[in-house]
């Protein structure tokens, strides 16, 4: 665990240096990377540790964004809005998890997928509160300059990513994490050993939703205009899954590495192959999944180093 914390701190220092020396492009890119790190770490609780393939990430991202936006437009401060987003989503996801987590495998995946559509349609139709299809304008953050804004939201996302990582670390070394791993491996066996499977899964689901919701609320404050197709975009569900699988599901660092790797690839491919960028990215993902099915972290680094030195 000590080693994990050290590696985490190293990554952190690296990120802060990047932000300090970089221009607006890199700053914005690393803010987005941090946001996806939060999303990937969150999905890891339910998808990686518990083994329940949830597609609900976008639903909670949108719910968080809209909760935050509604609080802010009705006069609440940004920080209040972010906390409200976390609370609201924790309650909603707790209830939904208690219902949905009775389903397993594909059935759970489809049900969680449907959540995104349901939430989007609801938001679209509740025009009085959410502005419906017209979207919501948030108050522009009162900061000195455009650059100061960018720096502020970089650190906001960084803070959130650190909290999410710290919780991941704590959970993976706790009885909760142990129980989740048992559920992922063999749920009936975990049940018969006396593990409270439903409670474990609901807690994992709440964890997987709450940080995502705060990320959504921070995102809303950052771009200060949101509309349903933007924040309930299904890509917010799919990308974190690809990232976690890329990095190593159920591990502590896998989601972080996966997020950085995926977004770097996406950026490089997009820049160089504008016409066929999604196609090229798709091929890359297929190759990675075929040849590294257990993620980047499953590479035997020690053996690799031996090969290099001998």
């Amino acid at each position, binding site marked *: 665990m000590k080693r994990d914390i050290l590696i985490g701190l190293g990554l952190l220092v690296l990120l802060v240096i990047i932000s300090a020396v970089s221009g607006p492009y890199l700053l914005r890119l690393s803010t987005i990377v941090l946001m996806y790190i939060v999303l990937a770490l969150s999905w890891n609780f339910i998808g990686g540790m518990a083994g329940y393939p949830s597609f609900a990430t976008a639903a909670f991202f949108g719910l968080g964004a809209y909760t935050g936006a509604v609080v802010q437009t009705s006069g609440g401060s940004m920080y209040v809005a972010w906390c409200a987003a976390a609370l609201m989503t924790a309650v909603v996801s707790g209830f939904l998890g208690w219902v949905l987590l009775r389903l397993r495998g594909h059935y759970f995946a489809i049900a969680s997928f449907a959540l995104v559509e349901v939430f989007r349609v609801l938001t679209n139709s509740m025009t009085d509160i959410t502005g419906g299809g017209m979207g919501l304008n948030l108050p522009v953050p009162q900061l000195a300059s455009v650059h100061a804004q960018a720096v502020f939201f970089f650190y906001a996302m960084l803070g959130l990513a650190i909290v999410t990582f710290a919780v991941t670390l704590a959970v993976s*070394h*706790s*009885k909760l994490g142990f129980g989740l*791993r048992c559920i992922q*491996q063999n749920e009936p066996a975990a*049940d*018969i*050993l006396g593990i*409270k499977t439903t409670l474990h899964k609901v807690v994992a689901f709440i964890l997987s939703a709450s940080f995502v919701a705060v990320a959504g609320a921070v995102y809303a404050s950052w771009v200060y205009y949101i509309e349903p197709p933007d924040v309930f975009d299904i890509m917010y569900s799919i990308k974190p899954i690809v990232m976690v699988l890329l990095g190593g599901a159920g591990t502590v660092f896998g989601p972080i590495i996966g997020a950085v790797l995926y977004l770097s690839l996406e950026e490089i491919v997009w820049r160089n192959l504008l016409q066929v960028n999604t196609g090229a990215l798709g091929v890359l993902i297929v190759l990675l999944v075929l040849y590294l099915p257990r993620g980047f972290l499953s590479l035997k680094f020690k053996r690799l180093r031996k090969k290099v030195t001998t």
Partner: protein
Amino acid sequence: MTLLRLTGLSRKFGGLNALTDIDLTIEPNEVIGLIGPNGAGKTTLINVVTGVHPASTGNVVFDGNDITHYKPYQVARSGIARTFQIVQPFPEMNVLDNVAAGAMAAGGARSVNDARNQAMTHLEFVGLMPFADQPASALTLAMRKRLELAKSLAMNPKLLLLDEVNAGLNAAEIDQALKLVREISARGVTILLVEHLMKVVLSLCTRIVVLHHGKLIAQGEPDRVIRDPLVVQAYLGRRYADTEHPNA
């Protein structure tokens, strides 16, 4: 005091009566052999007691508490452990953590480390210590059966339900398994074992219970029960029972 009391226990799957009106009591420190032809309802009985399938009617009282409507994890926490006919390890976790899982949930360990420490003693007991850091999927069937035993022992059970621990083992492995079951019984754990091998049943059990078509047709001392015409008939057919073959 009676440890487990089943009264009028029935379980239906649609129109099929898998268990009909079972009355059974188990006293502390007994080793009970549950036998019966294939499809008699032996595993269903275990599943109903452990809450995997809820009882259709009747009730289950364990250690003074009515556990009829308990969920599997509650049954486990109340002191009933079981093994499965088809072993159920956590394949990618190592052997030590497999056992620690039992210690953590029902065994009442305070932390992951505590659970691993408790798991060590149980691994030692079943002789799997040399494989502690191997993934469970790397074990042979005989070792996996012992792993199942260690997992259930880690739960500190008062009652252990063993569902065919010897199925698929060779003669030497069966002898080892028998030795373990005897030692567990000597520790004061009450055991109910489902078993097809008569040799095992006769050498281990203090009492035999016979199920046939979901009904309890005989119970009592091993030697007497296997001569019971009803039991012979259930296993070998009426014609065979009528000839009163003594060594059936």
